[in-house]
């Protein structure tokens, strides 16, 4: 079978291990005297969902979007803007945010997927920066100071309150598990195979009868919506949104997480987000000039571990 699609042996153990670690962290971290790490891991999971979504188009579809963080921003701002207008009901907020992400994904994909390679990278970047500057100039929503969210989304269920830290954590966890499961099904479905085939040889796919553009566009929208969900979670978790969450360096970091973990593998983006964020946390503790260590590390990974961390750990299992 094709490399990286089967959740077999090494990679599926790795997936299980990572998920178990996320599941027990709210209890493990305080027990180890590091309660701060519960928050770090919640953030890791949110970034993981965003990276998983980017991996669908970049790792499986070969579409390197340099503007993917825009969906974090749109998902987040949808919650923030709704909230400032007194709309806290999650059943309205969330579908609204998802709908906006889908529409923006459709428009951006429609335009950018007419190009390839470096042009695709530049167009996705330009479109995303357009929204970034829009948020910077929106004075009623805080411009570049950002927007505080005083009340997390309300589901109207007494025992299910996102203001409860543990509930918030496990909602994020549930979305991560759902994102991984959905991705596993999608990349192995007929749809997923068309997207992956189009990455391998788009001309060939057209010549056997696939109108590949519409499949790639659909993948782009799915990725946008999934990243938008990460934005919804981030807005709720941080109770704050700002233009910085969708500025281009964030898109770059997302690309890095995917490459670092292992492009086109299911668990790769999660491992990438984990290593990326933990390492930057740890290095920040050691020295103020942590970028001096972090930068070369990233360069070395790209140069010497082509399959990313997952590729390194599963050599001989994964064939890609």
């Amino acid at each position, binding site marked *: *079978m094709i490399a990286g699609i089967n959740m077999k042996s090494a990679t599926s153990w790795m997936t299980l291990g990572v998920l178990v670690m996320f599941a027990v962290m709210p209890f493990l971290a305080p027990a180890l005297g590091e309660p701060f790490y519960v928050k770090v891991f919640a953030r890791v999971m949110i970034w993981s969902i965003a990276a998983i979504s980017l991996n669908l188009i970049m790792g499986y579809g070969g579409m390197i979007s340099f503007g993917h963080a825009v969906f974090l921003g749109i998902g987040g701002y949808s919650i923030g803007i709704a909230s400032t207008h007194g709309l806290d009901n999650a059943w309205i907020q969330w579908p609204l945010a998802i709908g906006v992400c889908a529409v923006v994904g459709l428009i951006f994909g429609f335009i950018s997927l007419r190009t390839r390679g470096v042009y695709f990278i530049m167009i996705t970047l330009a479109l995303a920066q357009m929204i970034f500057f829009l948020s910077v100039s929106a004075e009623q929503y805080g411009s570049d100071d950002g927007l505080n969210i005083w009340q997390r989304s309300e589901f109207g269920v007494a025992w299910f309150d996102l203001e409860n830290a543990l509930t918030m954590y496990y909602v994020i966890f549930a979305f991560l598990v759902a994102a991984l499961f959905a991705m596993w099904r999608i990349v192995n479905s007929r749809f997923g195979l068309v997207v992956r085939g189009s990455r391998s040889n788009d001309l060939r796919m057209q010549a056997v*009868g696939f109108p590949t553009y519409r499949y790639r566009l659909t993948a782009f929208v799915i990725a946008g919506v999934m990243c938008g969900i990460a934005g919804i979670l981030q807005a709720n978790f941080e109770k704050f949104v700002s233009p910085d969450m969708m500025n281009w360096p964030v898109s770059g970091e997302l690309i890095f997480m995917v490459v670092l973990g292992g492009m086109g593998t299911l668990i790769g983006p999660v491992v990438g987000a984990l290593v990326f964020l933990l390492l930057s946390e740890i290095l920040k503790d050691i020295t103020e000039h942590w970028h001096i260590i972090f930068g070369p590390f990233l360069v070395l990974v790209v140069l010497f571990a082509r399959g990313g961390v997952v590729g390194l750990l599963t050599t001989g299992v994964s064939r890609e």
Partner: protein
Amino acid sequence: MSDALLSTVSLRKSFGGVVAADGVSLEVVPGEIHAVIGPNGAGKTTLVNLLSGLLTPDAGDIVFDGRPVGRLSAAARVKRGLARSFQITSVLREFTAADNVALAIQARQGHSFKFWKPALEDLALRQPAATILAQVGLADRADIVAGNLAHGEQRQLEIAMVLATGPKMLLLDEPMAGMGIEESQRMVELLQDLKSQYTMLLIEHDMDAVFALADRITVLVYGREIATGAPADIRANAEVRDAYLGASETD
């Protein structure tokens, strides 16, 4: 001949100043292998690209199976039954041979907006794929990643993908390109086998293969058709000998 399966009407295509198809009118009748030959730069590959929809003609039209297809997308033409192979081997290199063929079968089974059910174990795809692989002689190579197959095997795999689309007619762009003598021989045999089931337009440089396979031959020179006829007529045609056979090749 009004019973042609594929006909082109004054097909024109130029790239800047270079005219690659200069009013080509060609008819392929059902059941024949129609070879198109010509020296390098004669516009043979341009013709296949026009026929398969990778290029749009500047003027003229293409009629396939009774309907004009000249403005349809490549994918839409495959759905009508017009499938092609490429001069430079074009397979999905990261996928196994069986996966390659299964994807081509998937393409003809309606749309692929199916997001949930695993496709790699889908017998509706795997079984016909196995049959077609056996037909082209790759049954025992099914699980090899296409990029690791020998060159000749990749060419066979490409033919398998073309067949898997369920075509009425095959457009074969130099199927023997880059092959050794033995591999070429096997390809000739394969095409002879397929002849009873499919109409073919064959572009080929290997003159032995062309004369062994073709029912009719069209000679293109500088985008212009200079002769069409049975192999024996083409061999005897003085203009063709001048332009092509006699001058550049010692065949």
